[in-house]
């Protein structure tokens, strides 16, 4: 007998949603045969069966979001009378719509990565044993299973300890603590964390926690009269709010967001945000709040590359089985420039600058319902054809939701290519924790002055959003100019010949 658990898809992924069971209870299944589909912050994918046998019992219904490590199903020999008896005994997961507060005992998830203490990084390391907490009921976590209404997701051994100030701030600002990620030791939610949540409107600072629920993402501090919709009991947040145990006193000013369910006008439609959408929202917001973004634009003459591509594209497609796009050219030129300008390829981590010996290029790929940024690892070691293959492979699998978790993080720089949709120039948001992102827009014919004559050339605007905390204007411009030089002057034929 084998227990099927929610897999850890990527080291920062804390929970996942069971999208669809591909087998029904009682059905036979072979080892590694796809058993169910899941959706996480990082990827949507099929999960194979860990054993051969019969799917005896499904413990987590479709649409449910549960922590990593949660038992989802049992694959057995089929002799234990799959179905009837057992499923009578064991309460099933309720259907998503009713399940908001009905959480079965969930095995403790692996401890969340413990962020450094908010007050000085050495603190946690030097003093591993925190003093006892007379004022804070530790028991919150103990009876959490029975008090489903107050339960927090198990994001760390101390994530359920709620200090007085945390409780008060959450109540006053209507912050749902189930959606706040604790950065204190053991995942404890600190005052700092709640204040952060108040500022950003309950969006987890790094977007890692799948806990933000979209319709509620309006800043809690805004508290404007137009009632911001609260999500209906949502499939993606099986934990009920802990911000509500204190009964609102009658003389409290009515400035906080009403707890009413979503009210949509007749001509409106309520659509809960997808996992992907929520993750994107979190990441984008976090980036704008983190980086000191600046932007620089150059114009590149693509005439030689356009002509080369026209000349070779049919042979290339026949040989490689996919179309040659402009992305590998831009990626190749950028990789080379990044090796020359390591600051542009760097990451600001705390008070330190992390420089890299390699380029791991994030390639923004548009997919159904959002976008994803798979990573070409060690792209600086690849030539044009190698990059073309890698990019095509990642993009194809991204659209087919076939990416592996480790293929969507670890980038050191990113490129987005909205030109495919016709944009002339874009102002992209930096893909954290990168320090810059390049935008490659539409190539079009423009009249330009060449040798004091007006010529028609294929031109493109190449621009970069960059983090002024790390990079300065001169460097950003020199870097972009270097990419431009590579694109305009390299002998690309030679690169293509060495496929």
């Amino acid at each position, binding site marked *: 007998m084998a227990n099927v658990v929610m897999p850890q898809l990527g080291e920062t992924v804390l929970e996942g949603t069971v999208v669809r069971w591909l087998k029904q209870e009682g059905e036979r299944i072979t080892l590694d045969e796809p058993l169910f589909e899941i959706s996480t912050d990082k990827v949507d994918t099929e999960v194979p069966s860990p054993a051969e046998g019969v799917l005896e019992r499904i413990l987590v219904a479709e649409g449910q979001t549960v922590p990593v490590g949660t038992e989802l199903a049992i694959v057995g020999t089929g002799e234990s009378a799959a179905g009837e008896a057992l499923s009578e005994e064991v309460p099933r997961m309720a259907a998503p719509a009713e399940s908001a507060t009905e959480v079965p005992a969930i095995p403790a998830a692996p401890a969340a990565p413990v962020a450094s203490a908010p007050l000085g990084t050495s*603190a946690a390391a*030097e003093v591993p044993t925190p003093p006892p907490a007379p004022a804070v009921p530790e028991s919150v976590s103990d009876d959490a299973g029975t008090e489903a209404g107050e339960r927090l997701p198990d994001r760390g051994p101390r994530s359920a300890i709620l200090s007085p100030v945390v409780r*008060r701030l959450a109540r006053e600002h209507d912050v749902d603590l189930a959606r706040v990620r604790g950065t204190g030791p053991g995942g404890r939610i600190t005052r700092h964390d709640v204040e952060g949540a108040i500022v950003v409107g309950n969006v987890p600072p790094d977007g890692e926690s799948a806990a933000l629920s979209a319709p509620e993402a309006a800043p809690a501090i805004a508290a404007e009269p137009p009632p911001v919709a609260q999500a209906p009991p949502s499939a993606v947040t099986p934990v009920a709010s802990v911000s509500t145990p204190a009964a609102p006193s009658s003389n409290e000013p009515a400035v906080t967001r009403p707890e009413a369910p979503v009210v949509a006008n007749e001509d409106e439609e309520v659509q809960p945000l997808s996992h992907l959408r929520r993750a994107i929202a979190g990441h984008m917001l976090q980036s704008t709040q983190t980086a000191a973004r600046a932007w620089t634009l150059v114009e590149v003459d693509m005439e030689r590359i356009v002509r080369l591509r026209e000349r070779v594209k049919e042979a290339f497609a026949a040989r490689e089985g996919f179309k040659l796009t402009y992305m590998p050219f831009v990626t190749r030129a950028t990789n080379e420039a990044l090796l020359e300008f390591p600051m542009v390829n760097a990451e600001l981590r705390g008070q330190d600058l992390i420089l890299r010996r390699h380029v791991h290029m994030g390639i923004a790929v548009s997919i159904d319902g959002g976008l994803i940024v798979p990573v070409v690892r060690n792209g600086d070691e690849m030539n044009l054809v190698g990059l073309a293959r890698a990019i095509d492979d990642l993009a194809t699998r991204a659209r087919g939701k076939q990416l592996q978790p480790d293929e969507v993080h670890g980038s050191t720089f990113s490129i987005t290519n909205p030109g495919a949709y016709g944009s002339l120039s874009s102002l992209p948001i930096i893909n954290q924790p990168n320090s810059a992102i390049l935008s490659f827009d539409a190539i079009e014919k423009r009249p330009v002055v060449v040798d004091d004559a007006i010529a028609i050339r294929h031109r493109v605007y190449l621009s970069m959003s960059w983090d002024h905390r790390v990079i300065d204007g001169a460097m950003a411009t020199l870097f972009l100019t270097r990419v431009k030089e590579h694109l305009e002057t390299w002998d690309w034929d030679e690169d293509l010949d060495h496929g």
Partner: protein
Amino acid sequence: MSQTAKQVEAGAAGHGAEPRGKRTDAGEATYLVAIAEAIWEEMERDERVYLLGEDIGVYGGAFKVTEGFIERFGTERVMDTPICEETIMGMAVGSAMEGMRPIAEVQYADFIANGFDELVNVAGKYHYRSGVPLPMVVRGPSGGGVRASSFHSQNPEPWFAHTPGLKVLCPAFPSDAKGLLKSAIRDDNPTIFFEHKWIYRRIKEIVPEELDFTVPIGSANVRREGSDISIVTYGAMVHKALDAAAELEHKGVSVEVVDLRTITPLDTETILRSIEKTSRALVLYESHRFLGVGAEVAATIAEDAFQHLDAPVMRLAPPNVPVPFSPALEDAFLPDVADIEQAVDRLAAW
């Protein structure tokens, strides 16, 4: 040692009758000089103010705070007494009843225990019982860190802070010492003024010279602004806390230091305001941990600032043993900068 510092040391040792003359050229006064100035100015201002104590006159005081006073004010206003604290306190109480404003010195604060009954049972309750005010000040050098062992290093402030009717002051800076002592002399209540002997000659600063400069009794002072953790403390520990806060700033921890200055009446408002800001409190004190001044501060925070706390209130104070004579043991006994940093780390990591 710089020329200026030499001058201060010499001045603080008590040369010349004018306390003002003991300041540096820049106008800085040590804690000891500031105290001498306060007494001097108040004696000039009000002839009901007089001094009594052991060796304060001809000898100028064990720490030379009152050197030169007997020459200026005469033996009737600067009285050398027998070695009997009960007598000193009794005389102070009796003369205060009659409208004088005595300043009684105990040579070391530890010896105040000999006059305990006069202070606790008489001075503290006299106005309550008879409606007659007792405008008297008892001052004495308290505190450890100077290798003076268990009879000369104690912090008796909790004994008197526990007694209704007495005001207890423990300044940490020269200006506060001068301003608070002047306030105490002008106050109609019996006031115990503890001068930390470790601070006497170690800390100097520009001290106001206006004759009416005072510091209100019952008001704490935020000595250093910070946002992450509040250290609530007083006396010599203020200086340790400030040193620790400077170190911790390098580690990215922003520490607020609240100097109580007055033990009773306790300025709870300033304490609570700081905790509301930082949500974490380290109460640091030099009296014994058990039932020491910080125990009351910690209880006040827990009771009145509970909903602002993000971590348990923590105390850092010496254990309940006599102040050791061995330098190594005394160092272990007293909280130092490293102890404070460690406590802050622990609090931060809670």
